C-alpha cells in the first residue's frame, strides 16, 4: 500500500515533532493559552487535527507557521502531552526544508535592523525562518 | 538452532507467572490485544515464591534461551511475602549464573500487576529482543556438552 504525498508529509511531521497527534482530546487548551492566537489563521488546536487528517497542504500555506512564538505555553499546559508547539514547528520545518522554502531572505534583512537589535534576535529569527 | 524459514533466530523463552498478578496481567495483555512474540510460553504458578531455582535450571537444561519470573509488586503479594523470598532467591541464583559466565540478560524478574497488561507485553517484547541479541544459549549449551 503506497502512501499519498499528504500521508507521507503527515508522517514526516509526526517524525520530526516526536509528537503523537492522536493523543489529542480536542480540549483547546493550547489555543486558550496561545499568545499569538489572534495572529494565526489556523489555530494551534487545528494544527493537531490537520495532521491527523493529513491536511498538510493547508498547513504549509498557513501564516501561523511564522506567528508561533515558540514560547511553549501550549506544550506546558497541554493535558495530553501532545506538544502542539512541536507540531507547528515540524510543519514549519517541512516547508523550509523544501527548495525555496525560507521565510526570510538574507537580502531582506538589513532593512529590518535597527541599532539595538540583539544578536539573539537575529540568530533566533534565522533559525526559525530559514532552513 | 531454532530458526524460521527466513533464518531469523527464534528463542525459546519460559515465563513463570504468579496467578494473582502477573498471570492476570498477561490475561489483560491478551484481552487488550497487546502482542508479544509467540516465543514466550507462560507457566502458571500460584506465587513467584513457588518458583524453585531447580525449575529455572531445568528450563535451561532443556534448551531454554531465557527464563523470566513475573510476580506481584513488592508489597502487593497475594500471599504477603512470597515475592520477597523470590526476590532474594532469584537475585542469588542470577548472580551465581552470572558468576559462572552465563550472560546475565538471560534471566529476569519483573513485577507485573493484574492491571499492567501493557507492562506485561512491553516486558516480554523487551525480553525477547534481549534474548535475540544474546543469541542461542550457547554457554549453558556448552556446559550441556551438546553435540
Amino acid at each position, binding site marked *: 500500500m503506497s502512501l499519498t504525498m499528504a500521508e507521507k508529509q503527515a508522517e514526516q511531521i509526526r*517524525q*520530526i*515533532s*516526536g509528537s503523537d497527534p492522536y493523543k489529542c482530546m480536542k480540549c483547546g487548551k493550547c489555543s486558550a493559552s496561545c*499568545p*499569538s492566537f489572534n*495572529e494565526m489563521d489556523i489555530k494551534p488546536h487545528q494544527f493537531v487535527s490537520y495532521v491527523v487528517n493529513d491536511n498538510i497542504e493547508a498547513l504549509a500555506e498557513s501564516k501561523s507557521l*511564522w*506567528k508561533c*512564538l*515558540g*514560547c*511553549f*505555553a501550549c*506544550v*506546558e499546559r497541554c493535558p495530553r502531552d501532545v506538544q502542539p*508547539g*512541536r507540531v507547528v*514547528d*515540524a510543519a514549519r*520545518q517541512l516547508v523550509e526544508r523544501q527548495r525555496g522554502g525560507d521565510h*526570510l531572505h538574507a537580502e531582506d*534583512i538589513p532593512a*529590518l535592523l535597527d541599532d*539595538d*537589535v*540583539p*544578536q*539573539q*534576535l*537575529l*540568530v*533566533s*529569527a*534565522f*533559525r*526559525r*525562518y530559514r532552513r | 538452532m531454532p530458526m524460521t524459514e527466513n533464518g531469523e533466530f527464534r528463542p525459546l523463552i519460559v515465563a513463570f507467572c504468579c496467578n494473582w498478578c502477573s498471570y492476570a496481567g498477561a490475561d489483560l495483555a491478551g484481552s487488550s490485544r497487546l502482542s508479544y512474540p509467540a516465543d514466550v510460553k507462560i507457566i502458571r504458578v500460584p506465587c513467584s515464591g513457588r518458583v524453585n531455582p531447580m525449575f529455572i535450571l531445568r528450563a535451561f537444561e532443556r534448551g531454554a534461551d531465557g527464563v523470566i519470573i513475573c510476580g506481584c509488586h513488592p508489597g502487593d503479594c497475594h500471599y504477603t511475602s512470597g515475592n520477597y523470598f523470590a526476590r532474594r532467591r532469584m537475585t542469588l541464583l542470577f548472580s551465581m549464573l552470572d558468576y559462572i559466565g552465563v550472560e546475565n540478560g538471560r534471566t529476569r524478574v519483573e513485577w507485573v500487576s493484574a492491571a499492567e497488561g501493557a507492562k506485561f507485553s512491553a516486558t516480554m517484547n523487551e525480553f525477547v529482543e534481549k534474548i535475540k541479541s544474546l543469541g542461542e544459549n550457547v554457554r549453558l549449551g556448552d556446559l550441556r556438552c551438546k553435540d
Partner: protein
Amino acid sequence: MKYSYYPGCTLKNKAQDLDLYARRAAVALGFELVEIPEWQCCGGVYPLGTDEIASKLSSVRALNYAKEQGQDLITLCSACHHVLKRVNDDMKNVADISDRANNYMQLDAPYKGETTVVHFLEVLRDRIGFDELKKKVVNPLTGKKIGAYYGCLALRPGKVLEFDDPENPQIMEDFIRALGAEPVIYPYRNECCGAYTALEDKNIPAKRTKMIFDSADGFGADMLITACPLCMYNLNKSEADSKVPVYYFTELLAEALGVKEGVEQ
C-alpha cells in the same frame, strides 16, 4: 567554586551589561566564572526537530568541555540556558539524538549528559542561598518595587528546565527580596514578549509588551528585571503608556552588592 561560563553571543555585544555585572557580582560572592574558550552560539532557539543534530552540536561541545573540566556549566542569558539544558537533556535521555551526536563528534569519551547546567539565578538560590546573598548586600534596594519578568524561555518546558514552577515561579521574587527591594507579582510575568517575530512583525511584540507593562504597572511595579536580551529589546521598544524601566537582574545585583562600579574580573 569554579564554573564553566557560557556567555552566549549577545552578552559579548548588545547585552554586555548582563555579562559585566554578573562577573563583578560573582567576584563579590566568591565564585569564579571561567569562560569556555571558543564557545559557539547556541542558536538562540532550541532546535525542536527530533532529527536536527547539527544545530545541537555547538551546545554539546560546550557541555562536553565543562564535563572535561569537571565543572558545572553556568549561563546568564535565558535563551542559552534554555537551549543548553534541553540539549543536555537530549544527550542524557534521548538515545537516538545522543548516539547520532556522539557519532558525529567523535569525542574521546562519548558525552551522555553528564554536565549540570545551571542558570546564574539558580546558583544564587541553590548554591549561595538567598539568605547568604542578603547578608552580602551593602546597598539594599529598599523601597524599590520591582517586577520580575521571566518571559518564556527561562521556565518552559518545566519538566526539562526544572528552573522553577513554570506557572507560579518564585526565584526572581526571592532574589528581589534578597536585594532588599519589594517584589511585585503580576500575572503576565511568564508570558512571552513576542520573541523573534520582532524582526518582521513589530506588531506582535508591541501588543505583548503593552500587556506586560500594563499588568506590571497596574500592580505597582517601578521597574522590571529580566535575564533575556531579546525580552530586554522588545520591552525597550515598547511604546506602552505604562512602560517602566527594565534592567538586567545582574545590574541590580551588582548595585546591591556595591560592585557596580568595581574593577573587572
